[in-house]
């Protein structure tokens, strides 16, 4: 490990701890009302869902429309597990974390199974398969006894407070980011770039495609578990096709392949509908128009493939401060060019 990477890890660690500290402070001090901290929990859940879907859709380049299906597997598994344990307090939290992992693992098993046809199918065909899979899961849950059927699962202990949810969200995003910057992540990216060339570079495409699906499903399952213990009541309808579409919209809007984009878009698209609550009648209209406008003016999503790097940003602004660099020089020269034309 060089000194530079060590420094950059330290900077990021401090930033993450500050962020987490703020979250804990906000919820514990009572600055935020229950309503607002609830929205922030939903933001965390959506971030986890979007970033994990970005792994298959953005990084592997395969459109998957069944993410809500994996989420529901995680949600029901975790909820049933904690209900079965029926613990509270610190032991309850231990059971809750166990339930999340269990939910994630079961979702990963299904992710693996759905990943297998993904070896043969690509693009639209795969999208339809995953869509069908999501609906099958929903139908099964709706018709089973132990899931509470159409009535749903009630009185799930609400373990997912803001500090817990934001902590899990930060860890998940951190792990996925670390994954994408390891040999496994590069292999997944290389399949998106050119699957014939990746084979010629010794990448086992089958293995890595399945791996991407499995990992994405795992984190969707964990997010589902957090959701179940936030909302308290589960119904199969919460995980229908439109939920999957909602997640994919976040991913596309943020930028395929950009985790930064997914995070920003998840925040925007969770908060925007809430902000527009005062204009109840026009809410969905404004939401849709915002989506259309962004897609017209930035079809690659808000961030394209760009990833934000704190270390890079700090070095940049330190240089600006020292007078070595003019701020937004790149932007300015681009604007100048446009006026010249």
């Amino acid at each position, binding site marked *: *490990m060089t000194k530079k990477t060590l420094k950059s890890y330290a900077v990021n660690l401090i930033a993450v701890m500050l962020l987490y500290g703020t979250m804990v402070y906000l919820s514990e001090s009572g600055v935020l009302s229950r309503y607002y901290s609830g929205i922030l929990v939903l933001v965390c859940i959506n971030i986890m869902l979007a970033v994990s879907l970005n792994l298959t859709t953005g990084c592997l380049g395969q459109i998957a429309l069944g993410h809500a299906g994996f989420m529901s597997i995680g949600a029901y598994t975790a909820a049933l597990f904690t209900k079965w344990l029926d613990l509270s307090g610190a032991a309850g939290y231990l059971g809750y974390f166990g339930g999340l992992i269990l939910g994630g693992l079961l979702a990963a098993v299904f992710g693996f199974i759905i990943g297998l046809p993904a070896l043969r199918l690509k693009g639209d065909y795969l999208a339809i398969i995953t869509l069908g899979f999501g609906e099958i899961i929903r139908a099964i849950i709706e018709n089973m006894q132990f899931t509470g059927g159409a009535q749903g699962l009630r009185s799930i202990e609400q373990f997912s407070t803001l500090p817990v949810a934001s902590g899990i969200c930060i860890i998940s995003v951190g*792990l996925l980011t*670390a*994954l994408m910057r*390891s*040999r*496994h*992540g*590069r*292999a997944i*990216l*290389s399949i998106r*770039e*050119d699957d*014939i*060339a*990746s*084979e*010629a*570079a*010794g*990448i*086992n*495409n089958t293995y890595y495609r399945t*791996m991407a699906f499995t*990992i994405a499903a795992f984190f969707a399952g964990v997010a589902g578990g957090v959701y179940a213990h936030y909302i308290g009541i589960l119904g199969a309808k919460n995980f229908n096709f439109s939920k999957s579409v909602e997640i994919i919209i976040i991913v596309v809007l943020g930028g395929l392949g950009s985790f930064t984009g997914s995070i920003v878009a998840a925040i925007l698209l969770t908060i925007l509908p809430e902000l527009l609550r005062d204009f109840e009648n026009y809410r969905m209209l404004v939401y849709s128009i915002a989506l259309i406008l962004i897609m017209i003016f930035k079809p690659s999503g808000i961030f394209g*493939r760009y990833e934000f790097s704190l270390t890079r940003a700090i070095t940049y602004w330190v240089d600006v401060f020292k007078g070595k660099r003019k701020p937004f020089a790149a932007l300015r020269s681009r604007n100048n060019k446009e006026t010249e034309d």
Partner: protein
Amino acid sequence: MAMESVLITKNLGISFGGLKAVSNFDIDLTEGELVGLIGPNGAGKTTIFNLLTGVYQPTEGTITLQGKNVHRKRPDQLVKMGIARTFQNIRLFKHLSVLDNVTIACNFQMRYSLLGGMFRLPGYWREELAVKEKAMSILSVFGLEMYADTLADNLPYGKQRKLEIARALATDPKVLLLDEPAAGMNPTETNELMNTISLVRKQFGITILLIEHDMSLVLGICERIIVLDYGQIIASGLPGEIVNDPKVIAAYLGT
């Protein structure tokens, strides 16, 4: 140097439906040899590359790599056994950095697990550092080390061709298959490429089989030439013999 056979094919052939694209293809590449594969368009040159790299499965005949039969192996397994290739139309990982293009080819030489990567365990640091050093040293052979952080897509055409060869070399191949490495290059670039290929062969001690239409390059560096027409070998031998062979002149070179 010991003249050991590295790659042997016997009676190799493939049919697509009723069409015999390649038949009775026999070669015997010895260690460190540089062999040219030439022939008119549609003769089956690239098909042979696809057979040798496992993209197609032969319908007849055998391929032996260093004494091991490579029957029914996938392309990525063959890469691990020591056959690397480049493509006629460049296939780089365009939106990844030049360095990443090379380190991806070293993927199978690293051992650390999924969790090792996610949690940054010691193995991650050790292996990533070693691979980065290796990749940089390969890039420097091609004079690409200063472009390490550039996106592959932003490289000029000639350098993209070089990067593709660098990526193939990163897999530590015994045999390197180059599919028209000089396609679309001007004479200066072709000349530079010839020097690079000779240098690579010396430095890495590998066997090279190359497809090329640029006869100055083929005659300039190849020790042996195989001529293909309608999927069959019509001549093979030293460059001097090939250019004077009436069958080759009729089928490919012209007068």
